[in-house]
């Protein structure tokens, strides 16, 4: 097989064509309109926003930082301008059932008017009603009633007095009541004078006194009835007085809201309640309460029930509301009833009902972060319930879970008309779709954001406009064309694709912001390419401590990695280490050992629970390869162990499976493999080398180790051919490749790698499955056949391979001498 040629320097990096960027600085570029590369998502959003049916809420999926929220906000802001503002919502006292506050709906802006009007109305009544009851007219009427009662009593008593007088008897007032006494010449008779009277006269006097007392008693018994009548007259007077006081203010209110029948009904209820509770207005004195700070938030007195709780005020809302709730707890979504602690008790009323995000967004749009909603207990349940029922029911969690039996408010439910837009990553969307049957019913529209966009001349121009817009939006210096060129190339590096650009605007923005800083430090008025380079370099330096220490450990031989020479069963594998915001590649020595066995290839990482499932899968696959190519018609009689040497952290992924295979084959064939090359790639059972991730980091990791020791010109990295399009390597690597001091070899099949690593032809099997002599595969095949033969020599049918663990047993059974084997004597 012909040795694979290394990639050219041009193939290692896709430069941006500067001729496409025909401007000096981005100041001359117009604002970028619309959305970059998100046609699919935009179409879905427009549909989701436009359709007015229930259940067509929107889930916007995509990784964070690509501008989902910005786009959604912008789209909804535009859409909301086309719609009118929604109604205001108010809670008012329910005079029939105070624990069930009623809700009122008014056109936008009129809620505040109602609240103010009611406040003014109550204030007016608090003055007008006492004033009406202090008026001369009321007082004189009241006094007339009282006087009439008194006159009636007095007249009646006077009549008895006069009657008594005609009979020579005086009516006298005692501390407790009335008494009769005979008089003569205006003076009461003394007992002596009375005794001197004739008996007949005495009897007459006593009779007359009895009669008069009886009359007086009957008269006094009628007094309660007179008083009751006076009270009724008084109440009628009070009611008429109150009605007169209330009527004017109320008529003004009714006129103001005559176009809203529900409000008029509420006002009538208020009027009735005021008239039934006039005494509260007459006795009102909130001055004392007003001076006590701790009572400032307490429902203050009887007038509180006439106030209006303006729950949602859309006076200033121009179109449909677009609300983003950044802390979507259950209560923040559906609203809450607050309480005030007063003397050890918790009290509340309709004025302490607070709106949630659903209230504020009612009639418009609500944007939520899906992960945050799911994070908070019962927030998701509350949201779903509101959407399913199309109404907002304010209920505490305790009530919802039936944990509380104390009396609390049950506010009237508010009809809900809202479009919810959830923002989240793809995994969350798919999990919700799979695990929550309600989700599919409520979020029928998925707006899938692209992570990347095709890199073409047109898209590069658009990207330049986007960069210009970002710079202006964040008040940065303009960028030169070469700076934009470098940013665009970086956008390809971010997503590791020469033919695509990243749509992760947050990353791009971060680079621009830092470059702006460096440009400022350098005293430039525009951001140049070197500022971008400085940004990327500084960013790397800030996170580079661990990488530098690792390279240093390799350089000093603490971590064993060879970058020249050749060894059998040893290959330089490549892995990616993620430390904070930096992913960097690092070579690791992969070793393989083989001996006679049952065909088991042991992944030591997996054995000690340091290998993840994908890594284990890779090891199984390479085992399958070996079996397919070398043991199709005969049992595999080796026991092999593969390990990442000096690795003490978890490993996952199958990107090292090709390297592991090469190490294993080398160990089987006992053919040395060059240590100048590192290998990355996933292998299939058929020997195909498959694409892996982070190819740039892996190459750069090995290059940095080689560079530390000095490039020999022999060093390089073997990568899957399908990863070539992902290459966006550093300029120093490109330059080294151009100078022939470092090489990148793309391979598609195991045999290509064997040739590169061993220097031998790999060899293709003939129809009989035999490999040409002298080839690498022939050596492998030969060794494996030999192992099989040895295996038959050492085992009996059904007893398996003899190893140290069962040799003693066998020898016992056969009666052999144990002294023939030192290894056996230690009892292992």
């Amino acid at each position: 097989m012909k040795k694979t040629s290394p990639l050219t320097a041009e193939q290692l990096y896709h430069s941006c064509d500067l001729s496409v960027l025909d401007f000096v600085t981005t100041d001359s570029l117009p604002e970028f309109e619309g959305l970059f590369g998100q046609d699919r998502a935009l179409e879905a959003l427009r549909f989701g926003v436009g359709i007015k049916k229930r259940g067509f809420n929107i889930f916007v999926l995509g990784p964070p930082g690509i501008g989902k929220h910005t786009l959604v906000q912008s789209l909804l802001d535009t859409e909301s301008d086309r719609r009118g503002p929604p109604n205001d919502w108010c809670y008012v006292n329910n005079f029939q059932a105070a624990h069930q506050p009623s809700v009122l709906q008014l056109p936008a802006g009129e809620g505040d008017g109602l609240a103010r009007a009611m406040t003014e109305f109550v204030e007016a009544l608090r003055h007008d009603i006492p004033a009406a009851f202090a008026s001369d007219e009321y007082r004189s009427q009241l006094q007339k009633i009282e006087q009439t009662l008194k006159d009636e009593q007095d007249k009646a008593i006077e009549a008895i007095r006069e009657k008594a007088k005609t009979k020579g008897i005086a009516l006298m007032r005692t501390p407790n009541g009335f008494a009769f006494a005979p008089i003569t010449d205006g003076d009461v008779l003394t007992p002596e004078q009375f005794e001197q009277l004739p008996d007949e006269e005495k009897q007459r006097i006593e009779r007359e006194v009895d009669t008069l007392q009886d009359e007086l008693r009957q008269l006094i018994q009628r007094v309660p009835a007179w008083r009751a009548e006076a009270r009724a007259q008084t109440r009628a007077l009070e009611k008429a007085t109150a009605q007169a006081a209330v009527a004017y203010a109320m008529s003004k209110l009714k006129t103001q809201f005559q176009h809203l029948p529900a409000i008029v009904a509420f006002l009538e209820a208020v009027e009735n309640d005021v008239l039934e509770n006039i005494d509260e207005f007459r006795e009102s004195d909130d001055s004392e309460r007003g001076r006590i700070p701790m009572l400032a938030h307490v429902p203050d007195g009887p007038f509180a029930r006439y106030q209006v709780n303006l729950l949602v005020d859309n006076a200033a809302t121009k179109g449909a509301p677009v609300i983003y709730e950044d802390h979507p707890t259950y209560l923040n979504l559906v609203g809450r009833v607050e309480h005030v602690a007063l003397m050890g008790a918790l009290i509340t009323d309709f004025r302490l009902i607070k709106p949630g995000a659903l209230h504020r967004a009612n009639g418009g749009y609500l944007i939520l972060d899906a992960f945050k909603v799911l994070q908070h207990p019962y927030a998701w349940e509350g949201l779903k319930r509101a959407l399913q029922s199309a109404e907002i029911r304010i209920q505490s969690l305790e009530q919802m879970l039936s944990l509380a039996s104390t009396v609390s408010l049950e506010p009237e439910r508010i009809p809900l008309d809202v479009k919810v837009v959830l923002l989240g990553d793809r995994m969350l969307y798919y999990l919700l779709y799979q695990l929550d049957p309600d989700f599919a019913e409520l979020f029928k529209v998925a707006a899938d954001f692209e992570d990347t966009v095709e890199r073409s001349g047109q898209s590069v121009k658009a990207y330049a406009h986007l960069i210009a817009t970002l710079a202006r939006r964040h008040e940065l210096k303009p960028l030169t064309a070469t700076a934009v060129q470098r940013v665009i190339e970086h956008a390809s590096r971010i997503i590791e694709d020469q033919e695509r650009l990243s749509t992760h605007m947050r990353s791009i923005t971060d680079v621009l912001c830092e470059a702006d800083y460096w440009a400022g430090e350098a005293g430039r008025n525009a951001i140049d390419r070197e500022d971008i380079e400085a940004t990327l370099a500084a960013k790397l330096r800030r996170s580079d401590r661990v990488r530098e220490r690792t390279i240093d450990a390799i350089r000093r031989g603490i971590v064993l990695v060879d970058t020249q020479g050749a060894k059998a069963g040893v290959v330089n594998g490549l892995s990616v280490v993620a430390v904070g915001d930096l992913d960097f590649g690092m070579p690791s020595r992969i070793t393989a050992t083989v001996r006679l066995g049952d065909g088991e290839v042991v992944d030591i990482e997996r054995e000690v629970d340091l290998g993840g499932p994908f890594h284990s899968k890779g090891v199984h696959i390479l085992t399958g390869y070996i079996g397919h190519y070398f043991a199709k018609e005969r049992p595999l009689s080796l026991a092999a162990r593969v390990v990442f040497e000096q690795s003490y952290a978890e490993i996952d992924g199958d990107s090292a499976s090709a390297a592991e295979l090469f190490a294993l084959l080398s160990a089987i064939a006992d053919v040395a493999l060059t240590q100048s090359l590192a290998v990355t790639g996933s292998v299939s059972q058929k020997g195909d080398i498959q694409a892996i991730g982070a190819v740039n980091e892996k190459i750069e990791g090995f290059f940095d180790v080689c560079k530390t020791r000095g490039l020999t010109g022999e060093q390089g990295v073997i990568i899957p051919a399908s990863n070539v399009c992902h290459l966006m390597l550093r300029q120093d690597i490109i330059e080294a490749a151009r100078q022939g001091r470092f090489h990148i070899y793309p391979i598609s099949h195991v045999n290509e790698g064997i040739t590169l690593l061993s220097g031998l032809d790999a060899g293709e099997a003939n129809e009989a499955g035999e490999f040409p002599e002298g080839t690498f595969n022939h050596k492998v095949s030969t060794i494996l056949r030999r192992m099989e033969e040895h295996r038959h020599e050492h085992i009996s049918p059904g007893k398996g391979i003899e190893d140290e663990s069962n040799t003693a047993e066998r020898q016992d059974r056969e009666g052999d001498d144990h002294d023939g084997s030192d290894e056996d004597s230690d009892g292992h």
Partner: protein
Amino acid sequence: MVAAGSPASGQRLYAAASRLAEICGAQLDALFVEDSALLQMASLPFARVVNADSARIESLDIETLARQIRAEADQLRALFFQTVSNQPWSGQFSVLHGNVCQQLLSQVSRRDVLVCATNDSRLQSLSHLGQTLCGLLNAGRCSLWIEGGVSRAGGSIVSVVDRTPIPWHVIQQAVFWSQRRRAPFVCLVMAACPGAADVVQTITDFIAAAEIQSGEVVLAPSASDVIDLLERYSADLLVLDAYRFRNAPEQLQHWLMYSMVSVLLATES
């Protein structure tokens, strides 16, 4: 001097008398008369009382009655001193025993003003209220202030002139109270008064000359019109000529009963 017969009327009466004394810069004393007639009545063998609340007829004995009267006196004493506690002078509360009319008469000669109330139950018990009041007027130079059942805050001060020569002491007293209370002043000149038109003009000129704000002189066609006029002008105080009524007890009683407002029977002193 203020004379209250029962705690029911005492508090209001004492308050009115206290204000009056403060305005006039006068000392205020209180008087309570333990009516001997009551005790005498209680001594009679058939003495019983009709309870004003329950309408039950209860037996009455002199000791119980005496105790009740003393209790009333104690209550009134406490009320009086409570009312006058903020006054600069220290008033006296006297308890006399005997005939109410005679005891009152014995006190008025040393007083400038006697304050009482027509709705006072003790006064009401008097057989001849009008005569008693006339007797008080005749006893000396004491003016009578009779607190009425109706009060109108900010109401006008109404004086009545029904004779010539014009009783200027009535006009002056009314003006005095009008100015102290910042209330309108109204003078009703009875049509039956000789030279009524001239009287009206004279008083009108007096008001103008004295620069009395909100003063008015009205010709009242008849006595029966006075009640309506009192209503129309929201009268709060009616100032009458004491001399006019010295010998007209029925008329005085009539005026007191039907005007309902406080009445000042003014003397020249």
